[in-house]
């Protein structure tokens, strides 16, 4: 087979130019900061709050996605109902819809006079321009991750293991808890991690609905943008480095998860 040297060379060059060098530039920039400066930036109240809002709400949203995603997958894979194919396709909308469009749409939907905002306001619940709004946007953006990672695994799950559990006397509930969920666990955790990673870094769909009040509803990516516009590059870099490192840790964890899942597949 010809072309290994050429294609590999081009791949590495292009990868370096577009991805690796720019990312390395970010880390290099952060090295210009003394550890003390770095620490001062991160431990400032506003930075800490922004990180707390981003990571905390992203984790909460990913958990909601884990639960609701599982329910959606179960309905799509196990049941037949009118509109199933359409709902199946709709799951990908948050992937495909530009984030700015999602942002303005969710804001208008949950604003005080919006379709859902109005009835919620009547109940005394305010969503838009509060941390709840951020939470809602992060749920929206994370839906496809859990569904699309778990769906193929549930589809391929051997029906015989459920029959085996039943014929051994397990109730339906015991079968789900002891047999099905553990079989789906790697996929569920992968979906959770991907949804979390996406929500942490999410910008477009969040900033419209967030309210962007410092220390309350300001997400970390927005703080980076604000610091940039103030020409406080050091601050922007420090926050970005923290977020990047967390992303890398998540990728690493997901890779390990996938390997773990593969090892449990019997070699028939």
């Amino acid at each position, binding site marked *: 087979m010809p072309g290994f040297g050429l294609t590999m060379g081009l791949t590495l060059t292009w990868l370096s130019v577009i991805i690796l060098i720019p990312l390395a530039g970010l880390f290099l920039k952060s090295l210009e900061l003394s550890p003390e400066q770095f620490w001062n930036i991160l431990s400032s109240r506003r930075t800490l709050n922004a990180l707390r809002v981003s990571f905390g709400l992203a984790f909460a949203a990913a958990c909601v996605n884990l639960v609701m995603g599982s329910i959606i997958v179960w309905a799509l894979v196990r049941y037949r109902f009118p509109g199933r194919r359409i709902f199946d396709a709709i799951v990908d909308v948050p992937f495909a819809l530009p984030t700015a469009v999602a942002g303005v749409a969710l804001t208008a939907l949950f604003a005080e006079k919006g379709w859902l905002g109005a009835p919620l306001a009547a109940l005394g619940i305010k969503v838009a321009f509060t941390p709840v709004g951020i939470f809602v946007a992060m749920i929206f953006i994370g839906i496809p991750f859990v569904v699309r990672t778990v769906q193929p695994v549930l589809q391929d799950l051997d029906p015989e293991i459920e029959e085996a559990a039943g014929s051994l006397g397990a109730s339906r509930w*015991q079968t789900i808890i002891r047999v099905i969920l*553990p079989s789906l666990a790697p996929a569920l955790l992968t979906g959770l991690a991907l949804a979390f990673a996406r929500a942490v870094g999410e910008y477009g769909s969040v900033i419209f609905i967030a309210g962007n009040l410092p220390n309350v509803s300001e997400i970390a990516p927005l703080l980076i943008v604000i610091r940039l516009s103030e020409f406080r590059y050091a601050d922007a870099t420090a926050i970005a480095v923290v977020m990047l490192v967390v992303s890398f840790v998540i990728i690493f964890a997901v890779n390990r998860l996938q390997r773990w899942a593969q090892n449990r597949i019997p070699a028939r």
Partner: protein
Amino acid sequence: MTIEVKNLVKQFGSFKALDGVDLKVDSGELLALLGPSGSGKTTLLRIVAGLDWPDAGEVLINGEDALAQGARERHVGFVFQHYALFRHMSVFENVAFGLRVQPRAVRKDEATIRRRVKELLDLVQLDWLADRYPSQLSGGQRQRIALARALAIEPRILLLDEPFGALDAKVRKELRRWLRSLHHEINVTSIFVTHDQEEALEVANRVVVMDKGRIEQIGSPDDVYETPATAFVHGFIGESIELPVRVEGGVVRLGDRPLNLAADGLVSGASRLFVRRHDMLVGPPGSGAFEGAVRHVRNFGPVQRAEVALSGGETIEIDAPRGRELRAGDTIGLEPRRYRIFTG
């Protein structure tokens, strides 16, 4: 425990998987359901286990109406073709599963469960694998763990779906013998499904031959081999020569040639003549019911397998003992030592 099945009917869409099946299994039997794929044998097994429900008919286990119970209540041990081991559980936990999911009121304490699992792993001779995971086992080991898991619930009956189907030939032979001796040891009424006649004849004490959702014959391995009840059984079990013949007025004809074969009690009309390959005795030309020319000879240990073109035009394969060597081009006479003629 006895199993009784009455007039079972099961249809999948337009496909009739079971078409009126009656069967009685005595306590302690090891019964084989033998048939080609699509014959309904697995469907029958799944209905007895409670994994499927029939459209009509009855299933009685020990005289009780089993169809009123789900699989959970039936206490039937089922070994799946691909074992269906829980891959996230160790071998030990797989075997313990049935004991751990029992209702709290009857669930045994941890020590008893451990002891019981140990006993079962000893029984299948795999106690040293307790901490492994299914993906680390060989096919034969998985098969035996699946069996131990099914036995853990002290099943009233044991059902095995193609128990050796996914194994290679050597392991398969070992496990056959092992299964028979295990059955002898635990003596649970057992049914296993297979499409492999050798397996059925070697392991089971009774064989049920099925085809197209119906039972063709029930009998001991000797019965089904020596006195096949139908043309299907004769063709399916053992290697047979099959010739289309006509019976007219007590005479059997192959083409327009009358054969010197007794046709007492046979209905006139198109029929099929079956002879085992090794039941075709070779003689000089003119002797016997058939005559033909040897086309081709190969030696298989104690027998020589010859392709013979009969004078009627059909080509058959016979197994003749060594001693009188056949040669391509020989003209020989053939006399069936035993034969069966089935109408239709």
